[in-house]
């Protein structure tokens, strides 16, 4: 019955995870430029601050896609709906007219954004439990369009088509202080992602992604965990939506139309695949890249005199860049950007620096081939 008592006790510290004090100091120092980039660069101008907040929002959406697509293995073409639901909820809960909300109301708005989004994701997940394979992609696609056209357009929720204002509390009123708040929220998502991956939650999700029969024979409640994957993903996207509402200082259904939403949904899929499914550092980097693509390209176009051409074609240009990156990732580099970053992220994680990666990558394995276990 109990193998535990018979087996030898353990050595608490697993080998290879403990860095020396010197190693810790080195890593800390090496991390400084990254930290400086994240915290100081957006300070340079108001535009940069705004773009950086947008990148933080995308990073959260990327992490939410990572939970659903990367770990749980469920495809979603409707993630923008959770972003919208989060924004709508936050704005409507806080709704203080032209005044800044007090911190408590603001926090309540954010919590509700997370909760309502997670609830909506649970509904979609409940449907998804009964729909197999690729049909789920279609259902999420339709879910996104219906949410945009039949929920966001309800006059009592979108301020009678004029938008619901969402002013920031005084403490984070300036763009830069709001940016710091957004980065902190990314930090929350990252923390949750780390603990998903380190505990039975992530192991359960990945097991059911690989093979549901094996997962259930390991004692994992496959239906429950699939639902959990949807809920966690929806919660993160809802948080991103809350941050979005107070960034643009309103909820407007014009930001979440079905057509714009469809394009967003595709970009979200592209960024999680290009970042590397299951790889948080890669996903955050890829999300930031796609968020900043437009400002960077328009900057280049400005300085090279192509700005008119760029403005006319910018949606198409970013489409091509996204598509090429997606296809090259799928065909040549299934581990994505995360695989490229891995030697560095591993080193930061306390392992010795090595370009050779014998642990492989869950993303590469997940994308490389399905499991063939049958019962």
């Amino acid at each position, binding site marked *: 019955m109990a193998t535990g008592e018979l087996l030898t006790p353990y050595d608490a510290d697993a080998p290879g995870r403990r860095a020396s004090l010197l190693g810790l100091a080195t890593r800390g120092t090496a991390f400084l430029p990254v930290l400086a980039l994240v915290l100081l660069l957006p300070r340079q101008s108001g535009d940069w601050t705004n773009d950086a907040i947008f990148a933080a929002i995308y990073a959260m959406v990327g992490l939410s896609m990572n939970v659903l697509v990367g770990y749980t293995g469920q495809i979603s073409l409707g993630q923008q709906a959770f972003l919208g639901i989060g924004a709508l909820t936050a704005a409507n809960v806080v709704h203080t007219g032209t005044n800044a909300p007090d911190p408590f109301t603001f926090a309540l708005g954010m919590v509700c954004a997370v909760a309502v989004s997670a609830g909506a994701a649970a509904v979609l997940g409940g449907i998804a439990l009964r729909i*197999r394979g690729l049909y789920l992609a279609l259902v999420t696609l339709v879910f996104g369009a219906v949410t945009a056209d039949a929920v966001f357009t309800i006059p009592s929720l979108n301020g009678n088509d004029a938008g619901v204002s969402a002013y920031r509390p005084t403490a984070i009123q300036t763009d830069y202080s709001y940016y710091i708040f957004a980065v902190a929220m990314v930090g929350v998502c990252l923390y949750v992602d780390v603990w998903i991956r380190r505990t039975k939650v992530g192991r359960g999700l990945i097991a059911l992604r690989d093979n549901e029969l094996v997962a259930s024979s390991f004692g994992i409640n496959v239906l429950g965990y699939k639902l959990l994957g949807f809920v966690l993903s929806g919660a993160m996207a809802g948080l991103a939506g809350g941050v979005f509402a107070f960034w643009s200082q309103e909820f407007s259904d014009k930001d979440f139309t079905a057509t714009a939403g469809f394009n967003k949904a595709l970009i979200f899929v592209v960024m999680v695949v290009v970042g590397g499914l299951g790889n948080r550092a890669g996903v955050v980097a890829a999300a930031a890249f796609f968020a900043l693509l437009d400002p960077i390209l328009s900057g280049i176009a400005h300085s090279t005199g192509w700005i008119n051409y760029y403005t006319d074609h910018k*949606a198409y240009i970013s489409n091509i860049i996204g598509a090429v990156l997606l296809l090259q990732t799928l*065909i040549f580099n299934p581990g994505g950007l995360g695989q490229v970053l891995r030697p560095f992220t591993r080193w930061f994680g306390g392992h010795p620096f090595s370009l050779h990666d014998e642990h492989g990558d869950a993303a590469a394995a997940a994308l490389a081939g399905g499991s063939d276990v049958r019962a």
Partner: protein
Amino acid sequence: MHVLASAFSTETNFVTPLISGIANGSAYGLLGLGLVLLYKSNRIFNFAQGEFATIAAIVAYVFDRGTGWVPKAPYFLALALGVLASVLTAMLTERMVIRPLFNRPRVVLVVATIGVALLLIGVEGMLPYPQTASLRTISDVLNVRSYVTQVDHVAILDQDLAKFIALALLAVAAFVFFRFTPTGTAILAVSQDATAARVVGISVERISATTWAIAGLLGGIAGVLLAVPPSGSVTPGSITGLTLTVAFSAAVLGGMTSLPGAFVGGLLIGLIEAFANADQSFIPGLSSLPTAQAEVAVAIVLLVILLVRPRGLLGQEA
């Protein structure tokens, strides 16, 4: 069914939604045929099918007008060139994207077709032509009145009739192709067991190329018929954005593995949409959002069919 009955009994004109439903439904069916073909043979959802159609429309438009260095071609030759462009695009997609990924999980292939759709939209957008233009209709070209007949004072546009006839003919042709021709049966054999098909001497590569070429052909024909006034245009991404999702729902309703199913499903979804649009009280509680009614109605149909009868109306088991 009482929903439809209530639509009948209201004062709303019954013929108008019937005709527009069949017209739109034909469009969904035309696009759905290609989706069904690729699902039947490769078990994937091809999100690039809408852009295969748009490519055909753009190329046909450019040749019809003869803009820039492109010589002006007779209208029907221009349409044929458009369809050819779509076939070539589909074959290129197969060779460059699908074949290298063929042994990966299906979901990877589907994500890849999303990438192809994005790429095609981007490339189309960079081409120098007026992106809000439409193709000329057949009646424009033949210089005849634009409607064939009138039912109850509602005109039936001959372009819509052409779509409907094309859909019916293609559905029958595709059905016959899979049932009776060696290539058709070989495609089905490969889809069921690629290894076994290879053992009996079928070239899986050639079959894959053929399948995609046919998908391109179907998409191209859909494109040159859809990108016309009053509602259609040669705008990049417009068919993907407006028609593709509904065409998927139509294909699922008909049964993803049935080509006649795409015909039936397309028309049914077209009619459901049209009646939902025509009747403010089609879905109780949504009367304040008339524009969303059609979409919600289609979503409900899709969900019900997936939950109750996943193989659709005419699909096969498994």
